């Protein structure tokens, strides 16, 4: 199965009232909120990324014995050095672009990120990464709560979601996030032309301005529609962007190009959400090549193009990308040449201000080793994922992470900035 869009409201209907400003004030608000400013691009790998084949502990004999057909041969990995525990590590051979970023010192690899009693359900686990609360898979998301801290009225484009639906991480009680997968189809259509079309748009605007008292479900649709109408023109501006580097012709590459357009054209969004799926590799995942190799190429080539485009346009020092997945996968391959749902994974952080390198330590994959769990079937976490979130909030976005995360995770945060 593919996972891409299941992080949403499955526990009933959210009655979100969007704090959208009137369109004429938008630019002023964006400026008041400090354009240009730091921005965070969150990349979600849907389905559960097999971290052991992303960052490979290629001198661990158990890696090869437990993965007889899907292990990456030591001669093909892209070496990145030795971590604090002395494990020798390398990137998947299709991540050549990310190796360049690593060698520039701008890629942080945070190993064994997760939480206690890691959920093996895609949906529950995805929700937990969204809420940033291992005990609650419902309610608002950590990025939504960040947006709630921004001054009101909130710019309608304070965040930009490039997937079609709103992931739980962006859910909030007070801040709506537009979903703009493709700027060029984000337009207003009418059966008529000329003044009749203009009058129709005006009528649609008036109709959706109805706050619909006593009808929260209708109010939600109205506010969504209003958000669309109010962002059309700025999005159209962003979609005129011509990148400085060609992006790969993949859904992921095109989403990153959309993000780059918004950044370079000065839309001013603080948070961008990008996702790419296909990581639920239960069968025939391959090793250096094959299905997983293609996933790595899509990821690595897309991020490398984006990184270069940001550098060429002078945006790199204000841009940070963080990559995560809802869980990693079993250590031992299954009978189908794939891997089933596992536990702790890998977070990657890149950008012009990132302190790159190997953070945390790799597991030792020999059965019985204390870095493992679930009868040595899975990797146990070392770094709480919330401490990485905390560093993003405190160290990058410049807000206090404690109320947003509902706890103090700063002490254990890896030094990625």
């Amino acid at each position, binding site marked *: 199965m593919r996972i891409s869009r299941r992080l949403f409201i499955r526990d009933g209907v959210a009655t979100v009232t969007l704090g959208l400003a009137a369109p004429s004030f938008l630019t002023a608000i964006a400026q008041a909120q400090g354009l240009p400013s730091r921005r965070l691009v969150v990349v979600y790998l849907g389905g559960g990324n097999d971290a052991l084949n992303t960052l490979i502990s290629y001198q661990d004999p158990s890696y090869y014995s437990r993965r007889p057909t899907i292990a990456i041969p030591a001669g093909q990995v892209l070496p990145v050095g030795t971590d604090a525990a002395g494990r020798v590590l390398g990137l998947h051979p299709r991540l050549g672009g990310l190796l360049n970023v690593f060698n520039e010192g701008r890629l942080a690899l945070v190993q064994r990120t997760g939480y206690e009693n890691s959920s093996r359900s895609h949906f529950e686990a995805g929700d937990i990464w969204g809420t940033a609360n291992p005990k609650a898979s419902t309610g608002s998301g950590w990025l939504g709560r960040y947006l709630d801290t921004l001054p009101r009225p909130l710019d309608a484009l304070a965040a930009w979601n490039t997937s079609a639906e709103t992931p739980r991480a962006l859910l909030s009680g007070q801040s709506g996030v537009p979903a703009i997968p493709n700027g060029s189809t984000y337009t207003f259509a009418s*059966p008529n032309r000329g003044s009749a079309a203009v009058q129709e748009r005006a009528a649609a605007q008036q109709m959706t301005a109805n706050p619909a008292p006593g009808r929260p479900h209708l109010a939600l649709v109205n506010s969504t529609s209003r958000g669309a109408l109010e962002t059309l023109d700025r999005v159209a501006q962003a979609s005129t962007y011509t990148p400085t580097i060609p992006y790969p012709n993949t859904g992921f590459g095109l989403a990153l190009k959309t993000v780059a357009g918004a950044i370079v054209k000065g839309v001013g969004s603080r948070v961008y959400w990008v996702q790419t799926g296909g990581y639920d590799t239960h069968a025939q995942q391959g090793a250096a090549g094959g299905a997983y190799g293609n996933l790595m190429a899509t990821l690595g080539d897309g991020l490398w193009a984006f990184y270069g485009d940001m550098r060429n346009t002078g945006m790199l020092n204000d841009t940070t990308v963080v990559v995560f997945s809802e869980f990693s996968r079993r250590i031992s391959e299954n009978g189908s040449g794939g891997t089933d749902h596992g536990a702790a994974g890998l977070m990657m952080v890149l950008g012009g201000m990132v302190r790159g390198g190997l953070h945390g330590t790799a597991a030792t994959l020999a059965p019985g080793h204390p870095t493992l769990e679930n009868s040595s079937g899975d990797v146990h976490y070392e770094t709480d994922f919330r401490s990485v979130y905390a560093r993003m909030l405190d160290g990058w976005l410049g807000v206090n992470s404690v109320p947003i995360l509902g706890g103090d995770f700063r002490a254990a945060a890896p030094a990625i900035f």
Partner: protein
Amino acid sequence: MAQLNPEVDHLLRRAGFGASAADMETFRDMPLTGVLSYLVDYEGRPDDVDQRIGRPDHAQVSSKDLFAPDIDIDDARQRWMFRMIHTRRPLQEKMALFWHNHFATAFSKLTADSGNLQAAKMLAHKPVALRGPQGQLEIFRKYALGNYRDMLLEVAMDPSMLVWLDGQFNTRGKPQENFGREVMELFTVGVGHYTEPDVYAAARVFTGWNLRESVGYSDRDMNAYKEFVYNADEHETSAKTFSFPIYTDGNRTVPSRGVSAGMQDGYDLITALAVHPETARRLARKFWNFFISEIHEPDPGFVDAAANVYLQNRTEIRPVVRYVLTSPWFNLPEVRYARYAWPSEYVARAIKEVGWQNFSLATVRAPLSNMGQLLFEPPNVGGWPLGAGWFSTGTMLARTNFAATLAASQKEMLAVELERDGQTPQGLLTAMQARVTAAPFDAPPQQALMSYLLAGGSWIGSDSQLNTRAAGLARLLVGSSEYQLV
């Protein structure tokens, strides 16, 4: 549709896809109980909708080559949309849509495994059109209101499911957990009612439930196929113990059996899961959200009662749905329009209400994709994000832009049909709102609609004025927030 009584309108929206002008003739003099019986007891009427594809007075289909809905996924999508619009068994198609979401299986993974032709065939092949098993959608139509346990068993042996959740690779040496997990998490009891060891045990239960290819199989041969096979040699025969009862005496262990009898493991587990009280409650909650309300939490009394109907009728769905549609909650005024339309429902209803003259259903592919519901392409095995999850600025624009496309295509037809009512702007507005049925408009949006009709200058009711304003009005109504609710 507003000409019918509000209870019938509500029933047709929820248990069908709304009503076209022709449907209104059918239902005009029918009492509510008659409409209910028409919908629920549909088997008396022939399943003849596919035979009407190509008729000029119906929505059109179009294809690059010959229309081939058994082997081409876009043609299969058109056929299904045609069925939703023109079927005389609306509840059957509605339930097929419900089960498609419940057992969500995506074309893209099948195509990576078996190529486009076989992937489409696995999902949409209508029996006897070609050699090989029926497509998954036909299972959902066959069991639309049938026996859940039997459907679950057919789904477990369905080639598309065996590819989708990797059952084809589930072997004795390396049990495959994917189907074993999802059959509990999503198809039956739900998270919290099974354990991780149950997942391993379920994987072992289904070892050997694999696929085989027809003789001389080729991905590109329309008469080639893959079909279920029980590979006895690949069945793991040891006993499997679960955290919940497998047998009516409370025994939790599937006994060790010889390989030749090993398929019984799967029958036993599927039966146990189908009759599990949490499955009954989970289905009851899903039916509440689908048929009654997404805005109100499932009423505990409803969940208990619907679950009981399911269990007492030995997992038959028809009595449960009949119960749902006649339960006191179904007709509460506050649950009318208290559910968000799925994109496919929205599109089908809009076409039924606005019109389909010379309208090709190939046109709806891209809009449905942009709205977030390309049929046969759910985002993952959990199905689509329902309810408010359908709505984002991008998907809402896709809805309103589809409304514009549809209204533009029906411009001349609307001008002709509304000529008499269009003598006055009020007449046009009243007639269009009777035709295009949205949740009630508060005064400000209602005034905005009237202002739109008058914005082009004084009303003279000329052809060109009617041409422009009727289509613009249809676009505003179908694209309104009120119309996104059913």
